[in-house]
């Protein structure tokens, strides 16, 4: 809960600049949403409240808002608001609210957020942070800052040469590549980073590719992540098993990186743009 009601020491110029701005409050309990709404209404800003148990704005309300304020709460676990890509898809700047430990558990959301607000906080702090976000957003015509990367791909393979090759091929198309080399860390990072796509080697230590794929598909938070299986195994039954478990596509090693890139583009549409010269890869443990 915010510590107190609206703090009148917020400069008048800021209060004035927030007039008629609209906020979508997501995942707040009704009493806290009411308190924040009262604070915002003192600036003649508007806020929305949806579901009486926890605020969940409709698409129309999101579209009409200037800032989305997302509160990390258990009630949002299976909602679109815990999915970085979904939040970014809304195209609206957003403020992420939560306790320090909660926010650290969702690094992908943390990274995507325009600003963070750590509990406990005062309504005035929310107003100041929103003001800053709105000002920056107004300079960009009401939209979020352009994404640095066109897409995010998690590469799961214990062969460093394959990781290097994939990073070179995908990185030149503005795709951020994160790499893991065992099954357990692949699953953990898929859940935390919410990539657009996982390129998954079947023969990876600790958990094989089928087990990882199965776990991804059974988890409501990750079941929409696209998966391409990468395997040296040309056995048709292995390919069929991957399909049955929900793989979106497969590539057998050795492979042409051009063919793989074509398959990636089919699953993760990329905006047409000038390729970047420097590929980046981050190894995850």
């Amino acid at each position: 809960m915010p510590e107190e009601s609206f703090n009148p020491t917020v400069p008048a110029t800021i209060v004035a600049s927030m007039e008629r701005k609209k906020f979508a409050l997501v995942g707040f309990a009704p009493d806290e949403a009411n308190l924040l709404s009262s604070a915002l209404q003192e600036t003649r800003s508007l806020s929305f409240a949806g579901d009486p148990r926890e605020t969940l704005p409709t698409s129309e309300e999101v579209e009409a808002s200037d800032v989305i304020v997302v509160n990390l709460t258990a009630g949002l676990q299976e909602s679109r608001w815990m999915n970085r890509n979904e939040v970014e898809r809304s195209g609206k700047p957003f403020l992420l609210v939560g306790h320090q430990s909660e926010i650290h558990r969702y690094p992908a959301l943390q990274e995507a957020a325009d600003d963070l607000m750590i509990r406990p906080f005062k309504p005035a702090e929310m107003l100041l942070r929103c003001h800053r976000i709105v000002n920056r957003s107004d300079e960009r015509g009401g939209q979020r800052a352009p994404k640095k990367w066109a897409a995010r791909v998690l590469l799961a393979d214990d062969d460093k040469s394959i990781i290097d090759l994939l990073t070179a091929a995908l990185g030149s198309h503005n795709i951020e590549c994160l790499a893991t080399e065992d099954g357990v860390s692949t699953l953990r990072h898929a859940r935390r980073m919410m990539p657009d796509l996982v390129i998954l080697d079947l023969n990876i230590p600790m958990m094989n590719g089928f087990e990882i794929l199965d776990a991804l598909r059974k988890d409501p938070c990750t079941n929409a992540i696209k998966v391409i299986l990468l395997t040296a195994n040309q056995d048709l039954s292995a390919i069929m098993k991957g399909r049955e478990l929900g793989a979106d596509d497969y590539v057998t090693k050795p492979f042409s990186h051009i063919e793989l890139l074509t398959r990636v583009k089919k699953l993760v549409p990329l905006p047409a743009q000038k390729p970047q010269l420097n590929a980046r890869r981050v190894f995850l443990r």
Partner: protein
Amino acid sequence: MPTPFSSLKFLSLFTGHDPPEKQEQEPEPILIEPPPGLEKIVPGYLSARREDVAKMTALLAASDFPGLAVLGHNLKGNGASYGFPELTRIGNDLMQSAVRQDKIALGDELTELARYLGRVRVISRNSI
């Protein structure tokens, strides 16, 4: 055996063949043009495979067949992907010999791998 020693000389202990330097003086280079877009990473790839020869030689000396099978399997998967189908073929042979625990065949295949890597040269599109 005095140190330092070459992998090929060491492998000759397994294969019974003479080390290659006594058989051929200046082998013909094998010229390979990397797949477009991979030009920058191919030299590093080849360096890593040359290091693999030393690793696999040590694994063979230790009769670590599972370790050899993994490296053979990886070579099979990455060779042609980088534009070296010959490495994929040798990788497949190494993997199968490791599964059979055939030291003689592994020695021959490692010798073949070392020779290939010694001869292969990367050429750029501009130098053709």
